[in-house]
């Protein structure tokens, strides 16, 4: 009963998002890009549960995007199911190797090591330009969808509704994961890692699992972004993009997985329209929004939303997942 109520609001929200392009068709691609980004942000939020922030998750975004592109090239266009899967698997694989190293670290060091690794990959993408196309990147051929070759219009529609479905599934599974024992142990890393060790649990191991989950989510987002955009560039791995994921996570509300979607939708809209109507100061606009959110609503948009409904809010904060300002 509570479980079904808990899912009602997100389900309604997704229906609303699904209907936007019906009334404003030109927003469809923008929404698809925002949904792709929201998957990456979801990944960042998973790590935030353990109190860890990665300033290098663009690494997985880029690894998956380039993998999807190369797989598409090898297949001569490719099949979207295969390219997305390949991207996610590549991100997952890299994250196991990197995770074994970075999960030894916490907080600033964790964040900065991730940053360093993503910058190495960024430089690599720019350097090996005979393979990666350098800073101009590579264009991504339009893949088939379950064997069907689609024109731009139908393809974009399929991509949008497919992304929506993917995001819904990712939200559901991530929610289940975070409420499982392992997910809760992630939060335990944040509050008391020593005790976790004295329960016989390897905090590194738990963090590694969370790290891989978050990387796979980021990877899915990156592969989807590459497909929707039709191009991959090294900018996918640039540190400011990682910062942007963290930004969106906080904007949406780091404690709530729904915040990933809400944050990404709002961020993309603001960014796009700011770039259009305040071309000279769009960064400044975003900076001020970020400051206002952190100073006056540190729980993000979802926090504001929950604040409006005290009942729903208090019942959720308990078993759920929220990031509070440190006491």
């Amino acid at each position: 009963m509570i479980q079904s109520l808990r899912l009602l609001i997100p389900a309604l929200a997704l229906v609303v998002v699904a209907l936007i392009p019906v009334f404003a068709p030109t927003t469809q691609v923008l929404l698809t890009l925002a949904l792709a980004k929201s998957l990456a942000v979801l990944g960042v939020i998973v790590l935030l549960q353990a109190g860890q922030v990665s300033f290098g998750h663009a690494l997985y975004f880029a690894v998956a995007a380039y993998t999807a592109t190369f797989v598409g090239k090898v297949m001569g266009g490719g099949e979207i199911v295969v390219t997305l899967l390949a991207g996610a698997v590549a991100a997952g694989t890299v994250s196991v190797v990197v995770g074994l190293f970075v999960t030894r670290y916490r907080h600033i060091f964790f964040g900065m090591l991730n940053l360093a690794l993503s910058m190495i990959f960024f430089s690599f993408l720019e350097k090996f330009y005979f393979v990666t196309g350098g800073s101009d990147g590579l264009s991504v051929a339009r893949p088939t969808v379950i064997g069907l070759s689609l024109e731009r219009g139908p393809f974009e529609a399929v991509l949008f509704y497919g992304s929506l479905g993917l995001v819904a599934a990712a939200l559901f599974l991530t929610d289940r994961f975070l409420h499982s024992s392992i997910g809760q142990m992630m939060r335990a890393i944040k509050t008391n890692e020593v005790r976790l060790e004295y329960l016989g649990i390897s905090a590194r191991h738990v963090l590694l699992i969370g790290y891989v989950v978050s990387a796979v989510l980021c990877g899915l987002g990156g592969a989807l972004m590459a497909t929707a955009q039709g191009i991959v560039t090294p900018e996918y791995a640039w540190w400011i993009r990682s910062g942007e994921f963290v930004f969106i996570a906080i904007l949406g509300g780091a404690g709530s997985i729904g915040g990933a979607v809400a944050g990404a939708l709002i961020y993309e809209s603001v960014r796009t329209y700011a770039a259009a109507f305040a071309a000279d100061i769009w960064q400044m606009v975003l900076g001020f929004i970020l400051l206002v959110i952190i100073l006056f609503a540190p729980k993000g948009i979802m926090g504001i939303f929950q604040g409006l409904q005290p009942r729903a809010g208090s019942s959720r904060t308990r078993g759920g997942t929220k990031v509070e300002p440190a006491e």
Partner: protein
Amino acid sequence: MKRLLIAAATASLVLTGSALADEKPDILKVGITTFLSGPASVFGEPAKAGAEMMIADINADGGIGGVPVEVYFVDEGAGGEALLAEYRRLVEDVGVDAMFASISSGNCTKIGPLAEDLKVLNIMWDCGTQRIFEENDFRYSFRTQANATPEMLSTVLYLLKTKPDLKTIAVVNQDYAWGRDSWAIFSTALKQLKPDVEVVAEFFPKFGAPDFSTEISRLQALRPDAILSTSWGGDLDTFVRQATQRGLTNTSTLVLPLAESSLERLGGALPAGHIVGARGDHYFLHPEKAGDAAFTSFVDDFKERTGAYPIYPVFHMAQALSALEGAYKKAISANGGAWPGDEAVIDAMSGLTFAGLGREVTIRDDNQGVEDQLLGTTVRVDGYDFALLDNMMMFDGDAITTPVGMISAEWLETLTPEFVDSVAFESFSHGS
């Protein structure tokens, strides 16, 4: 009289009855992507200022075909997603009639297929990668200037003509697609045209590198005859200044195909005797425009308005606007004076000849523009506190542009040392 964008009127047949008259719009909307943030805004901002001035002139004369032009600028520096999203918004929501995109070759590559999907006239107004029309067959995209191949080939030609005894060369390029691509073209051409030149060092410092001290030390030890750098903006300025400060310019000749855009900023830092190019025949003291009142008054107005002389992106913008105007005129006349449909304007772009603020440019069958190339050697002249160009050569665009249907790399491989003397060019000296 201040009309600048004089489209070369091309005689065209009036195809009676074959075209339907579209309703004449109140406004002709044009979207322009340009860099307003990031390092490339050194090109984007002057181009934007130039566009605003030139469009004001067009509108003062009644607009294009009697329709005033309204312009929308998009910041390429806002990143790929924002750019593509905004591009779509302008085409689908605002309903622009033409898009000018873009400065970055990467963005041109991204936008090419999108323009095909959206079926919108897309003028690639500044980007230089030769791949665009060699690897794609676009209907809706056109480039109203040359590409990297003629730009680099003309640089090699100028270098060999002015330094026939060239023995050694080194390169210091920015580490991104342009830096790598331009070196690939340059070195391929050089190897064909003068096979015995030795490349003694290849440096690709990262884009935006603040310091070239180590590279300069190394180059001082190697003492190559010439040092190529296709860098631009702050990177080029820094490199040239550091090279001059440390005396590298006394021992090697700098070959700087994009330095026309840095001349004024470099001020006294660029000494005489170094080779400068302009990505086309773009120069605020264009040797053939000295008596052209429209040209000189634009240059003066631009200097007055922005505090600097116009640089090649401004000239590229002029060409794009001139092409747009020319295409509409051609299509209107083909339509018996009635307002043409979108597809008719696209058709009119093919084979169009137009002129911006330099020589005429013609759009070929593959939608690539053919443009002549101007290079010169720096000279210090009284009355200017920065280097000007002397010993200029203007190379014929037809001879140095990859033929339609060929890939540049393959075409360059077919060149021989005799090519150097066979290419047509005209010489000019400063003040001539």
